[in-house]
């Protein structure tokens, strides 16, 4: 790096005469590098120069050099340099209190380099305490307190946006210093000295949200992960009781923006594919390698934002409002952004794209849940890959949380709040992708059910995603329980759901031998049958009309063979001693009403057709028989049909989330590993400002 790089501050460097007697040897080195070298040689270059630190932080930081030098050091060498590290750290933190933004940025940059360098060493298990090495035990409390206070000051005060942004980046560097976030002892100081309020403030502010929202949400999400299973993480507590509606809405909008970016990318991609016969052919060939790659990449990047969404929904009860808080994509009332702020190009692009994106949806108000449902529909199309599988799983977990929430349900069932949710369907051999040009505006729950039906229909494959199926059924079950409890009669074509579920049963039975080796198919079947039981016994409370109840019977009678086979299969496993004996027995129990219906009506239908000399009956005729024979049928009321186990992260999902956080942590770390480009821009900008 040449001296030219230091740009606007170059003229200042000549004032500084810091180095002692090494002028001749290293003429080509940057001034700062020479100072660093002095540091790493154990010297204290500040001695005898009162202005040394003021001047040092005016020089452009060379993070690579610092990190590389630390990397080179041995464990012992590190310990020897402790005093110097401490001094540098201390002075860097101290200079954060200064007015000059360039100094502040450089100080932060120095801190980043120190933290990254030293933490990297610690992964090699050197057995020294990082805090001691960086700050020194004695000073750590006050220094870190000062540091966090400064950062809060930057985030809340009247500072250039780039500085705020860099503060957030610094926090991210600090947070992702270790691979396992819970082992990052430095974060204790962030726990003690909260940055929560500053983050929330920025989320609530429309101007800052555009540029800082993403990082703010990131920092918050990551901080929530810190030792979340062992200790009372104050960020968890604070996030859970956050009731600042603006901040929550801001949070939701950040998530929504990123998810819709993904959706749009997908949309343009599929549009390209459909644009012509030749291009589609070409794409098909191309798709085999390239786009798949790209897709996975983008999905992976969204793990983090999904996690943010998850934490907000899981922890905060007020977030549901923000989730369904509809907003118009084009914000007509956007105030002119303040002249000081210059938007980073990436975000700028997003905004403009969002502004004049596809016109069809431009005027249609949307909300986070709509976007999320669309996103889920895309992600769920392909679950073969582990990363995507996990992503889909996280989607389903979030949907489970939503479906469990009474308030969310009441919003989703509100007939006045209708949305068009573009759900994407996977092209499959046996069906064409229906491109629904005109989507009807419906309550959100209808789209949720559609999504579940679609999932059920499209994942009957060899690599059976058992876990996802269980979650999907759980979501359906939860929604039905809400409808039953609150007596909401949703105008929904339930027949599609019944058909999908029966098909699922059929698939499970036909692949019994393969599936039984890996999964407990009886639990799955029991869940399916229980959904039917809910309809059969409590249909009066939530079905839209009497005909739909008749249709339910019709479907069961029509597909009686499936249920018969299921019963006999379950019976088989109950008679033989084995792993699944109990669950199989439970399944037979659960089938009692369905079998009662079949046994009651099948002879009636048969005799009716015999009496009328008809070999096959039309649907209407069967329905007629069904209607006239209800009264002689008695059903058994089953216990706990409307009970479900509440979702709980702690014991069951811990490994999943630990793993997820670890991989996200790595991603974030990578994204903030090289801030020098940004650093440069920022310095340029700040030198203009100041």
């Amino acid at each position, binding site marked *: 790096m040449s001296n030219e790089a230091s740009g606007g501050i170059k003229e200042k460097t000549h004032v500084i005469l810091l180095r002692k007697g090494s002028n001749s040897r290293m003429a080509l080195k940057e001034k700062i590098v020479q100072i660093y070298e002095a540091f790493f040689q154990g010297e204290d270059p500040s001695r005898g120069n009162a202005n040394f630190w003021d001047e040092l932080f005016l020089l452009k930081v060379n993070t690579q050099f610092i990190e590389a030098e630390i990397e080179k050091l041995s464990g012992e060498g590190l310990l020897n340099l402790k005093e110097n590290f401490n001094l540098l750290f201390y002075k860097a933190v101290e200079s954060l209190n200064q007015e000059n933004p360039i100094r502040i940025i450089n100080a932060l940059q120095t801190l980043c380099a120190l933290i990254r360098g030293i933490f990297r060493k610690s992964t090699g298990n050197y057995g020294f305490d990082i805090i001691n090495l960086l700050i020194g035990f004695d000073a750590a409390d006050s220094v870190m307190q000062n540091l966090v206070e400064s950062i809060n000051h930057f985030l809340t005060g009247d500072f250039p946006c780039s500085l705020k942004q860099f503060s957030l980046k610094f926090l991210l560097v600090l947070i992702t210093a270790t691979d396992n976030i819970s082992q990052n002892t430095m974060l*204790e100081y962030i726990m003690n000295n909260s940055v929560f309020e500053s983050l929330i403030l920025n989320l609530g502010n429309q101007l800052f949200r555009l540029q800082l929202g993403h990082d703010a949400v990131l920092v918050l999400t990551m901080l929530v992960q810190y030792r979340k299973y062992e200790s009372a993480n104050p960020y*968890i507590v604070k996030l859970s009781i956050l009731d600042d509606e*603006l901040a929550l809405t801001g949070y939701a909008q950040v998530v929504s923006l990123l998810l819709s970016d993904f959706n749009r990318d997908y949309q343009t991609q599929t549009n390209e594919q459909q644009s012509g016969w030749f291009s589609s052919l070409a794409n098909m060939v191309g798709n085999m390698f390239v786009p798949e790659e790209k897709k996975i990449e983008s999905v992976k990047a969204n793990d983090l934002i999904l996690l943010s969404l998850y934490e907000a929904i899981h922890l905060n009860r007020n977030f549901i*409002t923000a989730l369904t808080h509809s907003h118009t994509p084009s914000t007509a009332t956007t105030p002119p952004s303040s002249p000081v702020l210059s938007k980073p190009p990436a975000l700028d692009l997003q905004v403009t794209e969002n502004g004049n994106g596809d016109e069809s949806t431009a005027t249609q108000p949307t909300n986070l849940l709509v976007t999320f449902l669309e996103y889920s529909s895309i992600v769920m199309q392909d679950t073969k890959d582990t990363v995507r599988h996990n992503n889909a799983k996280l989607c389903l977990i979030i949907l489970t949380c939503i479906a469990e929430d*009474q308030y969310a349900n009441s919003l989703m069932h509100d007939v*006045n709040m209708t949305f068009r949710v573009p759900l994407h369907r996977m092209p499959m051999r046996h069906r064409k992708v229906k491109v629904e040009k005109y989507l009807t505006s419906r309550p959100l729950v209808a789209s949720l059910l559609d999504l579940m039906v679609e999932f059920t229909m499209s994942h009957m494959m060899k690599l059976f995603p058992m876990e996802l199926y269980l979650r999907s059924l759980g979501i359906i079950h939860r929604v039905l329980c809400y409808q039953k409890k609150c007596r909401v009669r949703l105008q929904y074509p339930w027949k599609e759901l019944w058909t999908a579920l029966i098909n699922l049963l059929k698939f499970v039975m036909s692949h019994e031998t393969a599936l039984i080796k890996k999964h407990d198919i009886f639990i799955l079947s029991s869940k399916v049958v229980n959904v039917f039981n809910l309809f059969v016994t409590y249909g009066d*409370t939530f079905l839209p009309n009497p005909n739909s109840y008749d249709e339910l019977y019709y479907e069961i009678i029509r597909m009686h063979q499936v249920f018969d086979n299921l019963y006999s299969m379950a019976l088989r496993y109950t008679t033989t001693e084995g792993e699944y004996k109990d669950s199989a027995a439970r399944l037979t129990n659960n089938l009692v009403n369905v079998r009662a219906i079949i046994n009651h009506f099948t002879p009636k239908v048969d005799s009716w057709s015999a009496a009328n000399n008809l070999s096959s009956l039309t649907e209407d005729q069967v329905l007629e028989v069904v209607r006239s024979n*209800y*009264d002689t049928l008695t059903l058994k009321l089953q216990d706990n049909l409307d009970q479900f186990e509440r979702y709980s992260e702690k014991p069951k999902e811990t490994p999943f989330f630990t793993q997820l956080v670890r991989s996200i942590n790595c991603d974030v770390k990578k994204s903030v590993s090289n801030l020098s480009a940004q650093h440069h821009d920022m310095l340029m900008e700040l030198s203009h400002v100041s």
Partner: protein
Amino acid sequence: MTSSELMKVEFEAPSPILSKSSSSIHNAANSVSQSALSFYVDRKAADSEVNGNYQSMESDKNHLEERMRDTLHLLPNGLLPQENQAKLHQAKPHSVHFTDQNNIAKICDHVSPSLLERSLSYSAVEQTNSSELLHVTDQTTVNQTNPDQSDSMIQDDGLVEEGVDVAMATDIEYCVNGGENVEGVGMDVVSMETNKTDKLDPKSLQLNLHHVGKNVHISTCDSKSAKERSQMLKKTKVPPPRQSWLLRLFESKLFDMSIAISYLFNSKEPGVQSYLGNRLFSFRDEEIDLYLPQIVNMYIQMHDVAEAIHPYIVHRCRYSIEFSIHTAWLLGAYSADVLKPTWKNSQGIKLKNLILNEELRPPPPKHLKSDSTLPSPTYPKHIQSVEVTAPTSPTGSKKTHIRSRSDATGIYLKHSESQPALLNAINVMGDLTTGRAFDNGCTCHTSSEAMFNNLTGRETLCSCEAPRLMPELEFVKSLMSIGIRLQLLPTKELRTSRLIAELAMLNLNLPARVWLPISDKGIHHIVRIPHTQAVVLNSKEKAPYLLYVEVLECENAASSQVPSKILENTLRFTRSEEDLSGHYCNRGNGSPRGEFSVYGNSTDFDDADCWSQEDDEIIQFALKCRPSDTISQMSTESSTSADSKEPVYIAAGDIRRRLSENITAPKGKFERDPDDPSAAALKEPWEEKVRRIRESSPYGHMPNWRLMSVIVKCGDDLRQELLVYQVLKQLQSIWRQEHVPLWIFPYKIIVTSNNSGMIEPVLNAISLHQIKKHSKMTLRDYFIHEFGPPTSEEFLTAQRNFVQSCAGYCLVCYLMQVKDRHNGNILLDANGHIIHIDFGFILSNSPGKNLGFENSAFKLTHEFAEVMDGLGSDMFEYFKILMLQGLVASRKHMDKILPLVEIMQTGSQLPCFSKGVSTIRSLKERFHLNLTEEQLQLLVDNMVESSLHSLTTKLYDGFQYYTNGIL
């Protein structure tokens, strides 16, 4: 001997008493100030009156003197200095008998002599030089040793200043009071005065003052008597004989706002105008408000009237934010027609700007003089000075709590600190994304002092410079801009979802110090808009929408504290909060190092605490309002509680039956139709809707929670609607007064500009079109469906309601020539009343370029007649009788209706006045003044007959069906 000499002489004697009484006034600050005020207003009225009448009187000076003498005779002898004070013992104010032949004296035989004397004395003061007699009067006044009286005298003439605490006088003047109190107090002051002259004892004076204070409160309740007194008061005021018939009218019991307005409009006499301008102060605010459009229109169009009523408007604007806003809106709306503002008609715009620039505020304490810089658009200097020195004029009768001055100054000092916050607030005003769009940055009401005032029941006045009108104006503006944005969307479905989204945004900024202007009195704060309940109404180009608003009632919207925000799902704050408090405790002490272990300690923390599902209350809510009649419902409870393994059996047939019963059960509502979302929303009974929204609202548990609704219209001129509202209101009161059981429903209209406004929705009513479309029945069948068989009590009641309302509206339609009467514009409410809406085509204006599509007198179809049991039935005859009675009654009171319309016609470009003056003439003709009652009956019969058989009505309905799909 000049008057000033005399004054001096007279003043020397009572001065010790004066100073004593001034100290006692300090003791009884409140009551005295009120009496002083009453006095003051009296004086002011008299002043201006004299001013107004001066010229005319000057011309006939001799006559004036004569009158003066006459009137002086009325005074009890005891009050005259020549007679001895001893006589005062006998002079009981209420039993004074006048020896006069004057008419006025006859009416007011129990009027207080000193009142008479006082008002006289002021006119006298004004004209000191003109008459010898006045010297006498002056003496009398001074002799009274009434402290406040002499104070004002001193001020007035600038003659004497010794012995009187002038500062105190200003102090007293400063306080504000209701107009009614004024007269009431006057009476009591009189009795006090007599006592005083009797004993001259400061102690008893003090007592009397207290007595007066009490009386003030009593007299506010007794507005009627106060008014009576006020009339008597006025009667004594220098009536020039030339106008005596007019004055007699003005002072008679019959004199009311409608007379005042029409004389204000018709009289070209400046004296009469300024008399009436001053008389406005004596009317109740509500009476005035009813005629506000007329007042405003005259203000805009008639320069001379504007001068006369300017003080009143300015005064009201100072003390009422609501009045300011309404006036500004109306000024804006009616000035729109003024094409070229000239010096003659620019006063409307000027006043509007004056109001909107927030220059009309209640004068700040201590800074009395700062006010005098206030620009008055049209006023000659002398009138202006009257206005300026009159910061203490009556306002709403409710303001009995006045903050003491020390309070006010306390806040005043504080205000400098809040300045930066305030600047910030103005930046965010109207920006909905900030969450503080309707926050004017005023912190006066959140200060600890305000809290204290709140607890002690005192009112907190805003003393910071925060814009007072902004929150409300911004709120209405944002409602309107939503309407504008909706117009751009093509389909109703898009509009609905957009509306909901926009309102959700608006919601972020609530609660705020805003209120619904449509409500009778803006004494509430809007806390939430249940945005999913809002619906777009049926209209092709314009996008009017109906929204519901949750409000919390309060004592005073301007000064009560704004309720704090409660989030949507209130039930969601649970244990985690306690957790946090514990956490903070831990954090508070110990070194950070120690806290490492603190986290370790509380390992029992688990995330279930953050999100425990205790919120099943929502479900409980839902269950509560539904009968748990089904077995399945019960069985869940039993299955969860009891462990009995006894299997429960249910019959499938029962389930099916319950389901179909549930579906077919009459629900009193329509299914939601995306193409006509308003039908379902409007059909739902209001009470049910209120209950439903209340249950789901986080504010619903508050006792002062109310639900209100409003239709926001933009792109439509509602000025005609407003006119019809006024006429309907007038007709309603006429019919009520005449005991004619006609029923009409004047729904309130707020005009916010010449193309936007708000409409009060008619509750529990849907249009005939919607009924036909959704129920697919004839009107009579629908009646039977809704109210029961034709012989049932309910049906008969509904039928009677129908007939009474139908007759009422037929008359309205005839008199006002209401056109465009298709079924979409006729509503039917839950009691069977019909209500006509949409008065876009009235008087000279009808749809289709005035081609006369609907040439029948009113819309009366056979379908309507069918509901009335058909032609010739008893009900139908009753209908005709009602119409006749209604017409006769309205003819009798025609004078109350015509001026309303006539004044609005002045300078108006409204289409309903397109035929100019003939519009009013034909309106007058429709009252058929020349017909006998028999002839009238014939007329009604004919009109009914021809309307029933009108071909054009059918044609027009057909036309509407084909063009707009209206059934």
